[in-house]
């Protein structure tokens, strides 16, 4: 490249970088800064408020995310392993569908599906499993949230894991099979450890995404009881206009997402 060409190309990258700095970089820094400020002064007060009002919710968020990750991987690893070992195209296709369903839509769909008088209750009543008029109590609590988050994230996890598992050469599986390893053992003793990096990455991504989930809990939860952290943040910011405490909540969520930040940064520097 000639010198002026190098300048022209360098300049052409400015708008994209500028947009990300203005709409992401600066806000990120501002929120970290604001979390230490109250009435123009440095203070830890915002974090004290977070601790006083929201520590239950932090634990609740961690619990829901942990439950969601456990369920997602508890289903995702066997499913992906099975799909790697035996072709089952329509199931693989179905499992991909939620990838294309936006989070908000997932939230609403799970709401009408799981709510006490929702479609699932209706279906179970019609099938005679539930007595007529009975309400199904899973939609509004943590269980409904875990199910909804799993529903949305399972697709990505299966996609990533099947991809990683397909990268394991058949010979490693046949060697195990020849010694008498069944499907289950081929998955656990060969596929998962040989794809450990991908599994770990998928785990970190899922955990972070669930910790920071907003639209699904926003659409599913009713006002009472413990809330997900992002819901607290939204109301703190939107209804109380309390940007500082909202920022402190945000910084707590950044810390919880540090695993993902590390994973992504490593992917760039590699």
């Amino acid at each position: 490249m000639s010198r002026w060409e190098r300048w022209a190309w360098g300049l052409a990258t400015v708008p994209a970088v500028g947009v990300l700095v203005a709409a992401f970089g600066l806000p990120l820094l501002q929120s970290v800064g604001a979390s230490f400020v109250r009435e123009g002064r440095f203070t830890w007060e915002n974090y004290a408020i977070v601790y006083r009002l929201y520590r239950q919710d932090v634990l609740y968020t961690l619990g829901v995310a942990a439950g969601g990750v456990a369920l997602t991987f508890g289903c995702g690893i066997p499913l992906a392993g099975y799909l790697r070992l035996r072709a089952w195209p329509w199931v693989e296709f179905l499992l991909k569908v939620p990838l294309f369903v936006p989070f908000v839509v997932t939230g609403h769909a799970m709401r009408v599906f799981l709510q006490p008088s929702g479609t699932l209750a209706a279906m179970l009543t019609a099938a005679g499993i539930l007595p007529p008029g009975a309400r199904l109590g899973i939609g509004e609590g943590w269980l409904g949230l875990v199910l909804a988050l799993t529903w949305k994230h399972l697709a990505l996890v299966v996609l990533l894991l099947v991809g990683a598992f397909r990268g394991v050469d058949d010979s490693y599986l046949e060697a195990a099979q020849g010694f008498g390893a069944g499907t289950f053992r081929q998955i656990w003793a060969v596929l998962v450890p040989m794809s450990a990096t991908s599994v770990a990455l998928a785990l970190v991504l899922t955990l972070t995404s669930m910790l920071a989930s907003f639209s699904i809990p926003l659409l599913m939860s009713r006002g009472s009881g413990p809330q997900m952290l992002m819901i607290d943040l939204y109301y703190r910011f939107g209804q109380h206009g309390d940007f500082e405490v909202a920022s402190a909540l945000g910084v707590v969520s950044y810390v919880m997402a540090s695993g993902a930040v590390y994973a992504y940064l490593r992917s760039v520097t590699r």
Partner: protein
Amino acid sequence: MTRSLLGLAFRATVGTLVLVAILGPLTSLLIWSLAERWHWPAPFPQQLGLKYWLRMLQGDPLRALTRGVGIASVTTVLALLMSVPVSYLAARRRLPAGPLVLALFVLPQAFPQLPVFASATVLFYRWNLAGTIPGVVLIHLVGGLVYAVWTLTAAFRAVGPELEEAAVNLGASATRTFFRIALPLALPGVAASAILVFLHSLDEFNGTLLVGAPYVTTLPVYMYTASLGYELQIASVTALILMAPGVVLLLLLERFLRAEYLAFFGHL
């Protein structure tokens, strides 16, 4: 014999579970979108009809839809124009301050969006962008640029540098080489990228809710308001319209979409 029977039973059970689990919630949307009258505890609606679908064709929802499509179109064009130089330089490892810039293009994936967008809203108020369409486009560009840069970098990387070196060797300038060789060869990647950015913008909720409020309502925000106000039918119709483009895309392009492109959808 017993082995294959057991296997068959296993597949039947798992298959049914997956079918019900995946399609159950989506079918509920469909039923709700058609339910003109549904009094609990009847297992099925008393009256089905297209009333609520027809209502989408007028007034607020139609405005939200057209506004969303407009915003998504502008976002797509801008994101592509801006990300092509970055991706091309990144693919050829010529990006000034490379790792730093690329880090800027992955971090929005890693950090929780909501606190950052809340903070952006505060900034946008200062810049008179809050509640305006340019503000919403700007916030959609954050995710859009991330998708575009990574898919385009992959596309440019797939164009072998030796093809370009051959052109340079014959005396073409680097810029000319880019427009005559790299860009035409990367066009499928550009198309995939455009689809991703468009869908991202169409479905974006968190940023639009914060930055767009109260004047800019796109379809996801409209759906949220409807669902919150217990207008479940309206919300369900909107939800189906929102997910339709993505699912159609999956049906048509499943075989052609590479896994890494699909993976981006997980973050919509």
